[in-house]
């Protein structure tokens, strides 16, 4: 990051932990290569991979064999879903899911499958009762449904209800734990997941590696066939160095998460205080109210919507003012699509196309927060003075 810039897009990818960066360099220097071979060099690589898997397993309190390394969490979700969804089965999901999950649901629908959407309340949460109703309704189909849900919304920061309270018999739950993993000490068993997708880059690890924890990994049907790597669950040579860096970053994050979560939330509160009422600059807060919903909202996560500018344009203006922010929904800039999640939460189409997300990291200071608030105020005021040219 350049000096003077304020990085508030940690939900999209936290900065690489220096120890993980050092490990990557060290392992590359050592010459870690293909772990699938009959020689000492391969065994050394295999040992690094095994250690990474074991370390992550310990973090989530699972057996190492339940972890499948993938390249991204989107791939992990796709792998789990392809393994669980039967033809004719209903996919239970919500409009508030990550783009990757929404695309999987769309693909299921396009291939003739049914998709049942859990309604979202105004803060972006779905309810256990509504899920229970959907489970009961879809069970009558004869073909078991599959749930595809995130434990927390990356877009509006809403932490979702626990599945443990839901009576679901043998219905498979494919859960996206990416955002919540950064915020909570998470045990696999506590999530109620059949499969849990995770990501390295959200906890200070490198991009390009992610993981899937499966209650019964024998259920996994490989999307990419190969030479038996990952016990036949995912073909192709494993990214050993990235997996090792991921495991290290996750362990370090676990060790310090309480402090880093506290620091990020404290910076976010400093931001709230410096910004004042969002309404004064034409913004509405989205997601659970950060003042009252401490445990219902991801720490360090703030989200807003404007009806006088496209989210992408607001992000561009903030970028120019030295603040790295996000719309929270679009993966590719230049789209003017309204956010499905914000629409499902009852926002107008213009508000839903004007999303803004600021996610503070553990290293954010109160000064960063104050400067970010000042930048947002200045940018909003300037844009609103030109409402005539930016209105849609």
């Amino acid at each position: 990051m350049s000096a003077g810039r304020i990085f508030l897009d940690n939900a999209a990818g936290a900065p690489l932990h220096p120890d993980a960066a050092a490990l990557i360099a060290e392992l590359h220097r050592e010459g870690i290569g293909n772990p699938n071979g009959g020689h000492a060099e391969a065994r050394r690589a295999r040992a690094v991979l095994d250690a990474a898997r074991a370390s992550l397993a310990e973090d989530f309190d699972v057996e190492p064999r339940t972890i499948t390394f993938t390249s991204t969490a989107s791939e992990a979700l796709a792998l789990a879903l392809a393994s669980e969804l039967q033809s004719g089965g209903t996919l239970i999901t919500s409009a508030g899911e990550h783009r990757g999950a929404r695309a999987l649901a769309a693909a299921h629908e396009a291939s003739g499958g049914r998709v049942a959407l859990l309604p979202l309340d105004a803060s972006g949460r779905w309810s256990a009762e509504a899920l229970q109703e959907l489970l009961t309704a879809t069970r009558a189909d004869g073909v078991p449904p599959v749930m595809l849900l995130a434990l927390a919304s990356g877009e509006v920061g809403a932490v979702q209800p626990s599945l443990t309270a839901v009576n679901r018999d043998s219905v498979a739950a494919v859960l996206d734990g990416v955002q919540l993993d950064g915020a909570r000490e998470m045990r696999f068993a506590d999530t109620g997941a059949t499969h849990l997708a995770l990501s390295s880059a959200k906890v200070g690890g490198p991009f390009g590696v992610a993981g899937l924890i499966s209650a019964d990994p024998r259920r996994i049907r490989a999307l990419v066939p190969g030479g038996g790597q990952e016990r036949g669950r995912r073909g192709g040579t494993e990214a050993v160095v990235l997996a090792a860096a991921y495991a290290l970053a996750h362990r370090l994050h676990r060790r310090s998460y309480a402090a880093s979560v506290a620091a990020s939330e404290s910076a976010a509160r400093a931001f709230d205080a410096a910004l004042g009422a969002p309404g004064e600059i034409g913004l509405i807060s989205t997601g659970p109210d950060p003042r009252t919903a401490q445990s219902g909202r991801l720490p360090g996560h703030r989200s807003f919507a404007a009806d006088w500018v496209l989210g992408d344009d607001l992000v561009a203006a903030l970028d120019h003012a030295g603040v790295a922010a996000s719309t929270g929904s679009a993966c590719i800039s230049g789209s003017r699509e309204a956010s499905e999640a914000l629409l499902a939460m009852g926002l107008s189409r213009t508000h839903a196309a004007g999303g803004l997300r600021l996610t503070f990291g553990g290293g954010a200071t109160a000064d960063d927060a104050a400067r970010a608030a000042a930048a947002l105020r200045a940018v909003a005021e300037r844009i609103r003075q030109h409402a005539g040219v930016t209105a849609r």
Partner: protein
Amino acid sequence: MSINTLNSRTAGLPEGWVAAPEATAPERVLVALSGGVDSSVAAALLVEAGHEVVGVWMRLHSAADRVDGGRKSCCTLDAADDARRVADALKIPFHISNLEQEFADAVLEPFVASYLSGETPSPCVGCNTAVKFGALMGRGEALFGCSAVATGHYARRAMRADGGAWRLRAAVDTEKDQTYFLHGLDAEALARSRFPLGERTKEEVREIARSRGLVTAEKPESQEICFVPDGDYRSLLRERGWSGAAGEIIDESGGVVGVHAGSAGFTVGQRRGIGVVAATPRYVSAIDPTTNRITIGRRESLERREITLEEVRTPEGLLPLGSELRAAARIRHRGEPVPGRLIGGVNGAAQLILDAPVWAASPGQTVALYDGETLVAGGRIARPAAAR
């Protein structure tokens, strides 16, 4: 001085006017990067002149998403990639700005409506006036505090010596001059537009791109209308519900000589694709959308010395009623300007009386009027009263 007193085709600038310098004091400029060589070099020149440059690629429509390859269009995702790489090489910020709604309102819808009403539209004019030097200029100011918008157009600006008025001035490279498409810029837009390539030739521009190692240096020229990637605007009309009902082709005496598949598929001056066999070539001379009839005639019957214009503007606004000016009229891009007299009518209408005939003045097309190198007014060729 009034434009009424100007003589046409006098070389250089009118008395009391000076060339507007492109490189003034350092300022924050938004450059519309298309992903082509011209806008890349425009950005490079501004950076080298010490300006603070913000690169923006405009997402204007989704038509190009469906067409892959072809580095000819400015509106594909490949073009956005090239623009991003150029911005990275120049170390300037780069953003994608979505102007689909503005483009649809100012360019796409009028384009379709124009064809359906028997005209031949000039979509680039509307895009320049309303999108690039309209909405984009507004966004540049609102989002980034930019005081000006620069493009890779080949054009120059002239300024009245007291700074109180602005005109477009033809580019040094007369082959590349694009002032025809820029005629709709008003005084405010002209004051805040920057054309860094106005003094350069195309070959110089490519050489600058090569010497700076820009990835766009050898990209081919874009020729087609960017939102009609396959070059056939009729497919766009069909998407918009045009069914192309068969109609009559008549000759100038009114006799039916053939049938066509929808009058919106024709342009005045068109020769190919009429499907009528005659001893000498026949051209579309009139299009009547109300009767779905097209008229064809011999080449000479498309010559006109008097043309009715509408929406005629100078940078200060609509051409005043009763004003009269001598200027040379260009009825198509790269067309040879023909001297004549322009007489202002009601509400921006005007009568253009030319010293020599022009051929195939198509309703809907732009007419740009020059006094020497200076563009003094511009408007659209009106439909004949009978076809309105």
